[in-house]
């Protein structure tokens, strides 16, 4: 082995099996770069900070709440915010601050899982459809059109009703929601990834991969996919906010998770009865939904400007 070959070999090894330190360093660079990029857009940085706070609160919920969110205490009903109860108590004397945090943890988890589910089905579907083209593509896309035309909220209403009739509760109910919301996101993801693939597959690197004998699947998923992620990330971020709005709306209508599970939508609905005497109870869950959706929208908006500089000039 000549010295040059040896060095090349070492480089290859470094790529293949990075040490822990190397990996950490690479992550640090990646995070540093990401932060540097983020700072280009004020909207994105504000959104990012809001999201970090949100996720932080969701993760730390068990440690920063002091009350059981479903434990009733009728001696302390409808109390205003105090040192003991940071945001006061609701009609059953439950601590609103604890309910908000536990409810948010659940809501954000549902949204993340639903969007991940939608991406994990929609991306391969769209990428393969766009990559193979022809008849496969036509049929696959007609099916997607059919789903896209379906009014979202109505689909959720049907699915949630079914879940209720089958007496699904707790975690099962949440899983049905995740499935429905993720499934409804699939056609959008499929369309978006397909149209990006149509652009990407004309490019030279695809031809190059084919020339060195890579298979179609490998090219579609390993070469093209990484090049189309940015519009998908933006879309997924905005979708997270939308999913949270929908889940809240469903439970506001009384079709989501039944009480006493802490839930921003149903807590808000319950607070309507006390609007005149204790309007603050209705304010907190509403503000929480607003904050969360706004955080995702800000981040998504800013991200779009960063990833598509043509738009950022506006």
């Amino acid at each position, binding site marked *: 082995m000549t010295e040059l070959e040896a060095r090349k070999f070492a480089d290859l090894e470094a790529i293949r099996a990075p040490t822990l330190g190397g990996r950490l360093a690479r992550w640090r660079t990646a995070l540093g770069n990401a932060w540097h990029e983020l700072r280009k857009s004020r909207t994105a940085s504000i959104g990012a900070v809001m999201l970090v706070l949100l996720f932080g609160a969701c993760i730390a919920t068990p440690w920063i709440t002091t009350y059981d969110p479903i434990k009733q205490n009728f001696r302390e009903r409808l109390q205003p915010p105090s040192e003991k109860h940071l945001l006061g108590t609701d009609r059953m004397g439950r601590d609103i601050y604890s309910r908000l945090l536990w409810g948010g943890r659940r809501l954000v988890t549902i949204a993340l899982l639903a969007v991940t589910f939608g991406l994990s089905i929609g991306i391969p579907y769209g990428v393969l459809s766009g990559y193979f083209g022809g008849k496969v593509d036509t049929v696959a896309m007609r099916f997607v059109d059919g789903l896209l035309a379906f009014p979202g909220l109505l689909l959720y209403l049907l699915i949630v009703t079914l879940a209720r009739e089958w007496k699904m509760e707790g975690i099962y109910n949440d899983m049905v929601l995740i499935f429905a919301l993720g499934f409804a996101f699939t056609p959008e993801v499929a369309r978006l990834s397909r149209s990006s693939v149509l652009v990407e597959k004309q490019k030279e690197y695809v031809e190059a991969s084919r020339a060195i004998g890579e298979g179609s699947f490998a090219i579609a998923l390993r070469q093209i996919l990484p090049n189309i992620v940015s519009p998908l990330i933006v879309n997924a971020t905005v979708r997270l906010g939308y999913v949270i709005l929908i889940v809240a709306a469903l439970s506001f209508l009384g079709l989501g998770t039944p009480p006493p599970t802490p839930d921003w939508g149903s807590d808000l609905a319950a607070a309507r009865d006390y*609007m005149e005497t204790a309007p603050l109870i209705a304010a907190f869950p509403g503000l929480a939904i607003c904050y969360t959706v706004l955080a995702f929208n800000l981040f998504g908006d800013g991200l779009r400007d960063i990833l598509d500089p043509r738009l950022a000039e506006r």
Partner: protein
Amino acid sequence: MLAYIIRRIAYLVPVLFVLTVVVFTFVEMLPGNIIDTLVGSEGVNDPEVRKILEKEYGLDQPVYVRYAKWLLRAVQGDFGMSLVTRRPVAVELMSGIPATVYLAVVGISLSMLIAVPLGTIAAVKRNTAIDYTAQVTSLIGISIPEFWFAILCVLFFSLYLGWLPSSGFANPFVDPWASLKFLILPAAAVGFRQAAYTTRLTRSSMLDEMNKEYVDTARSVGLSEGKVIFKYTLRNAMIPTITISGLQLANLLGGTVVLESIFAWPGIGRAIFEAILQRDYPLVQAGVLVLGCIVVIMNLLVDLTYRLLNPRVKLG
């Protein structure tokens, strides 16, 4: 264009197929069968009676035969009887459509009245205080859950100020003044959210247009700034705005369930929601089907209008 219209209509077939299958499957997937649903909690204990009923409702036939029969009847407007009121489902649904259309059209018009001027000003005065205010307001507008906004409106205008009724409906042809009072809050709740979308859209399509070459040309031949904006850019920028508003209108017709419930608005959305609560599944099934068809047809019309307004778009 004609070929395009025909092809576009042919696309409706798979869309409507998916829609009908989903709606049909929904009732199929309910626990128990239609007889339990019809008879209620007591159930049918006599196996003989059960058999007769099953034959009557065609439950002894395979699923696809039942689907075909159901579809055939649905096309003729026969959706069966409501389990609660025992009146034909079609009648129940039809009575809700005018109220829904009324609210959606007023809401969208209101949003256009606010959003188009606001978006235009924001684009023309880009990066000024006005622009930032418009941007921040519209971003908050799309992040506020509409039911919360509605509740806040009720809290302030009905309970605190006492100016407007908190919910209800009056026929505009019988009592226009009362009808207007009932309309203001729901229409504002619909309009606010829509206005937020439309403002963002108008702003960005105005900016798109203002960067085009014909604007420089128009300016260089000495046209006034007002003329350039109102006669040329705004007109072109309105194409996407109108298109998206049309799509939003379609969505509103299919999705004001939440607001209609809050304001006790007697529209089709609330009819479906109450049917869900009362387990009146024939009504739910038909309601979703009808709303779905309205949305699909509206989408088609909007698409065709878009091509008419913008002949440069390739008919593909």
